[in-house]
C-alpha cells in the first residue's frame, strides 16, 4: 500500500455521485417505464406522440438529465466492476479512457436524438 493520496479524492466523489444519481434514477427510470409502457402503451407510440412529449420543456429537461445521470451511473458502475476484477496500471488507465469516451459518445448521440425528437429545435 505504498501509494498515497491527495485530500481531493476522486474515489470519494465517484462513490457519492453514484449514490446521488441512484436516487434520481430510481424516480426517473420508474417514470420512464410507466410513461412509455403503461400510460402510453409501447405498441402505440408514434413520432407525433414523442414529439408532443419532448416539446414540453420540463419533460425534455427531465429526459436530458435522465440521459446524463444514467450514463454516469452506468459507466461508473462498469468501471468499478472492472477495477474490482483486479484491473491495474496501464490497463486500468486505458479502460478508464475508453469508458469516458464511450460515455461522452452516448451523451452526445443521446442529445442529438433528443433534439431530433423535440419540436423546440
Amino acid at each position, binding site marked *: 500500500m505504498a501509494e498515497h493520496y491527495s485530500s481531493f479524492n476522486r474515489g470519494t466523489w465517484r462513490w457519492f455521485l453514484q449514490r446521488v444519481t441512484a436516487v434520481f*434514477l*430510481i424516480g426517473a427510470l420508474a417514470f420512464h417505464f410507466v410513461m412509455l409502457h403503461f400510460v402510453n402503451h409501447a405498441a402505440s407510440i408514434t413520432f407525433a406522440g414523442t414529439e408532443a412529449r419532448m416539446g414540453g420543456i420540463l419533460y425534455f429537461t427531465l429526459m436530458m438529465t435522465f440521459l446524463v445521470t444514467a450514463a454516469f451511473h452506468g459507466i461508473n458502475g462498469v468501471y468499478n466492476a472492472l477495477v474490482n476484477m483486479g484491473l491495474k496500471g496501464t490497463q486500468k488507465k486505458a479502460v478508464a479512457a475508453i469508458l469516458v469516451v464511450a460515455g461522452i459518445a452516448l451523451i452526445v448521440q443521446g442529445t442529438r*436524438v433528443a433534439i431530433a425528437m423535440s419540436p423546440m429545435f
Partner: protein
Amino acid sequence: MSQSYDRGTVESFGRWREFSAGMWAWIFHKLTGWILVGYLFTHIAVLSTAIGVDPGSAAVADGTDFYTSTLQGLEELLIVRFLEVGLLAVAVFHIMNGIRLLFVDLGIGLTSQDKSFYASLVLTGAITVASIPTFLAGVL
C-alpha cells in the same frame, strides 16, 4: 518462502452453492447493472437509427414516419414483448436492491440485510408478474 501455490480465481465463484444472501445480492446487482448499461447504449442506438439523426441514413430517406413504423414493427414481435418483460424485471430488481443498498449505505437495517435482499427479490417477482398482461396486450 521458496514457492507457494495459488489456487486461482476459481475459488471465488466455483463455490456458488455456499454463497450467502449478501453475495447473491451483489452478483445480481452487478449482472442487472451490466444488462441495463448495455440496454442504455442499444436503446439510444435504436432510437437514433429510427429517428435518423445521421444524414444519409434510411430514416432520413424515409421521412419521420420511419420512427413510428420501426417502433410499431418491433412491438409486433412477441419476442420483443418478452424481452421487455425481462428488461422490466431487471430494472425493477436493480431499483429494489439499489434502494436496499442505499439503506445499507445509510447504516439502516444492516443486521437484516439478508431479509431485505429476499424482500427485493419477492417485490421484483410480484411487479414483473403483475405487469405481464399490460406488456403482452395486443400480441397474444
